[in-house]
């Protein structure tokens, strides 16, 4: 299983699309590693500095409809090669969400009030998150506090994470 623990990147916007996560012009790369310098290159909003903000992050927390648009699995790959294996959001576009689990990564949905709570209490701080998949719990920690938030994940999704993706599972079962 991949690692699901580390510092948090907060992206305070709805509808971040896969063109923003990894622009189409980099889809000519045929290795995942080659995508590394281009993560979130076309994402621009006030206060976001791509180089500084994505450095050494392992978890992404964002708003609704993350990963909408193109089906490119280059979006999860660009996150993965930058060390981010978990995205926590209010909701995801279907294809992006499935791509995450198909790669053995985590796309965790939390209700809007819990996402709001995370932004209010932890954004702009040195925040870390650890995912406990046995207890379906997010452990969130900053310099002044630590707490646990429960989440739900389907059996299929959890199996894909534990088996590190859909190809291995499908090969065994179909």
């Amino acid at each position, binding site marked *: 299983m991949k690692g699901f623990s580390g510092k948090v990147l907060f992206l305070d916007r709805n509808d971040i699309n896969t063109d923003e996560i990894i622009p189409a012009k980099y889809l000519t790369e*045929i290795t995942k590693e080659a995508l590394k310098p281009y993560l979130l290159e076309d994402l621009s909003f006030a206060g976001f500095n791509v180089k500084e903000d994505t450095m050494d992050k392992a978890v992404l927390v964002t708003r*609704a409809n993350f990963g909408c648009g193109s*089906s490119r699995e280059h979006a999860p790959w660009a996150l993965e090669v930058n060390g981010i294996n978990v995205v926590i959001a209010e*909701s995801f576009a279907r*294809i992006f969400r499935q791509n995450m689990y198909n790669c053995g990564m985590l796309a965790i949905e939390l209700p809007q009030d819990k996402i709001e709570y995370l932004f209010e209490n932890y954004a702009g701080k040195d925040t870390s998150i650890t995912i406990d998949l046995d207890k379906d719990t997010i452990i969130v920690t900053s310099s002044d506090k630590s707490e646990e938030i429960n989440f739900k994940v*389907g059996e299929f999704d959890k199996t894909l994470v534990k088996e590190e*993706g859909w190809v291995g599972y499908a090969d065994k079962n179909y």
Partner: protein
Amino acid sequence: MGKTTAEKIFDAHRVNMPFPDTHVLKLDRVFCHEITTPIAITDLMARGMDRVFDPTKIKAVIDHVTPAKDSKTAEQGKILRDWAKRHGIKDFFDIGRNGVCHAIFPEKGFVRPGYTVIMGDSHTCTHGAFGAFAAGVGTTDLEVGILKGVCAFHFPKTIKFVLNGTLKPGVYAKDLILFIIKELTVNGATNMVIEFTGPTIDAMSMESRMTLCNMAIEAGGTSGICYPDMTTVEYLWDFIKDEFKTKEDALKEYSKWISDDDASYEKVYEYDVTTLEPMVTFGFKPDQVKTVAEMSGTKIDQVYIGSCTNGRIEDLRIAASILKDKKISDDVRAIVSPATPVIYSRALKEGLIEIFQNAGFCVTNPTCGACLGMSNGVLANGEACASTTNRNFNGRMGKGGTVHLMSPATAAASALEGKITNSLLYKA
């Protein structure tokens, strides 16, 4: 309780349900292009699983960057080409015979009512126009599709649109789908299928139905779906005439996929389209839609007519009817990309290509290139494009560029004026 089209297709293709709400479906078609497939191929090779489940059900095309623009895109084409050859995939469309995937695959008769279709391309939802369940997927789903001929989905909740009335002159399927996306918002149909039904749809060509279904994904939808009818049968007839004695027989067989009257829907919307205006996007999300009247006069630098949304013969005819004997504005450059070689040939024979050229358009070979800023019409920083494509995301057609999505008619009229313009200005 009755069933929707998608439920009927799921029931007919379900292999099993390994987990709650996880439906593993048998696939009738796995479509491939050179952007998302090569990594699936190299991964299968690395795993020692370089196999295909059925070479007759896999169809492949080089369409995103063609002819190759550099060594990297040449390599992507080569990986796909070698793989197709190695596995005896006969329906592989290489340079000279290639077109935009969601235009060429229907044109070849590869999609039939009741089919399950996946492709590593979000606009795969286009093929639902034939009464199929067609979903865009990522490379891993594609890889498993190639290897095993299956794909896992959650239950397809369905939203139904009942559309009544006749579209006004100057208003087309593109305007209707932009209006629908505005109503649904960019995630209003996430994890759901969108059915387009009613007299407005019954009167539409397959080309227009494909334009509608193509943009289901822009509201988050898994697949668009139109019910199969005699228009579907007529479109497919050359490919199915050996299977059926008469067109009526084909229609009877295909009609079993139409949703039952007592099917259950997540939501039903009913609209009268008679007052619908030409629509256009602003901003960077496809649900940011206004009427052309509201956006009229917005300056543009480039016009692009083409893509899997609006690069078909009907689209070229409409645009050419507006451009005939006229010149585009000195302030714009304009590009038209017929979506397939067949469309290109037909446009040549009908004199449409000459009209485009005389108007000042650059006519390119069939390719997806400009739509996603990969080749053949990339915007410079700060430029705006009037485009018949499907996404207006920030930087989509080139870093720092803006895209206004619109119909081919509005795009043609806007080319003549150098600014967003209602096509009715040019109707006799």
